[in-house]
């Protein structure tokens, strides 16, 4: 176990977004988090990465409680959050976006890593000096994932990477995620596209109105009748 939350409760004003939520991530595993809009998935990721402060509960990472730390501290510890909605920095170039991803790094390998991503995703390389705001949706998503990886995270939090992307691009994005996973990064994936997410995941949590309602390995969830009905459009 590399990471866990215990009894996490988060409130927006009077609204409780998460209620006593506990999850566990095993090192090197891809865990997916499923649930309807407003179930609290994004809230959970924001809380982990320090954007939101839980009212109650505890977040443990490598045996240390990181609850309450500022986002810049948390990313330094090796947890990168790739936010939903393709949050590229639109007024900066592709290159600058990637460089921003390495904001916390002071080593000399940054340029080399950027070149590595450019090699791996030639489409980004082509647009190296274009403003990120001018990229297509799929390219932006690619960029945002690469940017998150630039910090060399041990855990990657991915928030709906397939949102609003064409099916083909979605496939591509999932392929990237699968590769990152294979390279040994621990991933927490939030997805609406439940079927695809479960296919590449090791384990899945199902969230409903701020609560975990089911947890199982991905294959069993994929086959579960209830899950199919609620989340696979059955």
């Amino acid at each position, binding site marked *: 176990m590399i990471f866990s939350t215990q009894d996490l409760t988060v409130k927006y004003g009077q609204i409780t977004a998460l209620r006593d939520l506990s999850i566990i991530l095993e090192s090197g595993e891809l865990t997916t988090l499923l649930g309807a809009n407003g179930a609290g998935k994004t809230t959970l990721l924001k809380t982990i990465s320090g954007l939101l402060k839980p009212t109650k509960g505890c977040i443990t990472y490598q045996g240390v409680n990181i609850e309450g730390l500022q986002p810049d501290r948390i990313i330094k510890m090796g947890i990168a*959050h790739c936010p939903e909605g393709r949050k590229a*920095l639109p007024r900066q170039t592709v290159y600058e976006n990637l460089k*921003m991803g390495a904001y916390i790094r002071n080593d000399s390998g940054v340029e080399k890593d950027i070149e590595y991503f450019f090699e791996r995703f030639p489409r980004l390389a082509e647009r190296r000096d274009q403003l990120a705001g001018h990229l297509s949706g799929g390219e932006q998503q690619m960029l945002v994932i690469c940017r998150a990886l630039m910090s060399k995270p041990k855990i990657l939090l991915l928030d709906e990477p397939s949102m609003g992307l064409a099916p083909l691009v979605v496939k591509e994005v999932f392929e990237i995620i699968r590769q990152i996973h294979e390279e040994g990064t621990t991933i927490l994936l939030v997805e609406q596209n439940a079927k695809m997410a479960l296919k590449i995941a090791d384990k899945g949590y199902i969230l409903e109105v701020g609560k975990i309602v089911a947890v199982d390995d991905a294959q069993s969830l994929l086959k579960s009748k209830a899950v199919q009905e609620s989340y696979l459009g059955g």
Partner: protein
Amino acid sequence: MLLQHLINGLSIGSIYALIAMGYNMVYGILELLNFAHGDVYAVGCFAALGLLTMGVHPALAIMAGIIVGFVINLFVEKLAYRPVRYSGRVTPTITAVGIAYIMRNAILKIWGPETFAFDIGVRGSNLQFGGIIIGTLQIYILLIAVSCMIGITLYLKKTKTGQGIIAISQSIPTAALMGVPVNRTISIVYGIGGALGVIGGILFCIYYDSIFIGIGFALGTIKAWMASIIGGVGSLKGAVMGAIMLGLMESMVSGYVSTLYKDAIVWLLLIAFVLIKPQGLFPAQVAEKI
């Protein structure tokens, strides 16, 4: 004559440009209508004056003034703006007006409303081309303005903190997720804004060999704001161009229309400009979403 008026306008414009750059740091990046900008840097300029009259070396006094501007803005940001950072537009605007009042009256209490000589021993000479006279000081000021602009642009473009600042201007949460220490970086933005203001303010004082309370609000905040709006909010280049346009406009109106109605005419021109070209000369693209 026209050429001389143009040169006069250009030199006032370049002073406005320096002040506007500092203003625009905050306005462009954090969207705060910083009514306190002028009065904060005026404190820095008066601090420099205080040291000068105590016999401190001018270079040291000016450095100290710049540091004072930097530090005051750090404190003001922490105490007055950070608590209302996410409270919409009106709230921080009003706190800024409050800070302006506090600063201005602090100056009034300590130094009073008088005009003081501001003499650092630099005397510009004049270059004459035909009938046109250009002061060397004017050239220096223009050079300082341009090099500050280049310096800031490079700082924002090439340094890590600079890139962090640009990221913050686009989305605070996203920047935070990149590991940008948001509060510290925003403090730096305010600090630089204050320091740039002091540089502009001190050049103003040197150019006119005098300092008085009005360099803050009337000649600082308001002109910087006008320049930012002419240039387009959030564009450093725009602020500089806007400031120079403003200087030229004032000079031309004084020279060819009327000194009596100068302020009114310049304001009316600005209002007309805003109504015709609300995005300014160098607009930033914004799309409203629902």
